[in-house]
């Protein structure tokens, strides 16, 4: 059973490396569009896939996964934007949980944009 005692242990561990976490201005950001359009198109499993993949690789200190609103391109949802320090923002469209592992591996880890999933590739 999950108990509050267990949560206390987590707290003590987290407090120990809290400074480390705050001092990471180089963290990459994964923004998943979660307005009505995004949610209806399947953004939730995409966000969950990102958090799972990132946790599996032990990158939770380096990559922040969060949500954003509707950016006005509802026909391309689920839309995911990736912001990496020193790199232009990349917009991935029509995302699925299956595409997530490749984006994490190629883009977030190895810094190679997965061009075929981006909005530019989808339009042409």
């Amino acid at each position: 059973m999950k108990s509050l005692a267990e949560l206390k242990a987590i707290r003590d561990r987290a407090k120990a490396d809290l400074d480390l976490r705050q001092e990471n201005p180089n963290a990459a950001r994964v923004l998943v569009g979660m307005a009505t359009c995004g949610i209806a198109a399947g953004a939730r499993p995409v966000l969950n896939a990102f958090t799972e993949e990132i946790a599996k690789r032990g990158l939770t200190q380096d990559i922040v996964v969060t949500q954003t609103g509707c950016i006005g391109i509802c026909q391309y949802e689920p839309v995911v934007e990736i912001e990496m320090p020193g790199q232009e923002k990349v917009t991935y469209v029509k995302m699925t949980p299956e595409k997530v592992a490749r984006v994490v591996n190629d883009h977030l880890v190895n810094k190679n944009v997965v061009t075929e999933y981006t909005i530019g590739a989808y339009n042409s």
Partner: protein
Amino acid sequence: MRELSLNVMDVAQNSVRAEAALVRITVEESDKKDLLSIVIEDNGKGMTEEQVAQVTDPFFTTRTTRKVGLGVPLFKMSAEQTGGSFEIESEVGKGTKTSARYVKSHVDMTPLGDINSTVEILIRCNPDIDFVFIRSTDSGSLTLDTRELREVLEGVPLDTPDVLEWIHSYLEEQTQLLYGGAK
């Protein structure tokens, strides 16, 4: 929306945008009463009477990125198509309460879906807001109150990965007790 839990995620974000400090999500499921009730309540900035009247209109939205707002209309439709009811009460400066009641056995009933995942994502993406999640059935209820967690956590943020993992497991266990355990 394929699951009502997605409507909940969507409508709860209106509370986030309304600068709520506390969002309460109550899901009551009863086979005896053939009822599912979902209530989302916040202490955000609220709406005027005029806004409340307009909010179920798909062509009303406060956002500027596009001209339609389907969140509330879709939620309302999901309830009314089962012969249930839908209601929004709001007061400027006090907050907003959105209630949907469903007739569970109706052929047009949308499944509730993964409501725990909705709650987890809301906490993950809005770690500065407090959420109270109450889910009840004929056999009992479970409660997750982030204010209680915060007390234990002493400043450690709710979106710390291990804390989120704890919340996930806690909800999973409690749900299993609620649905799978002996009555």
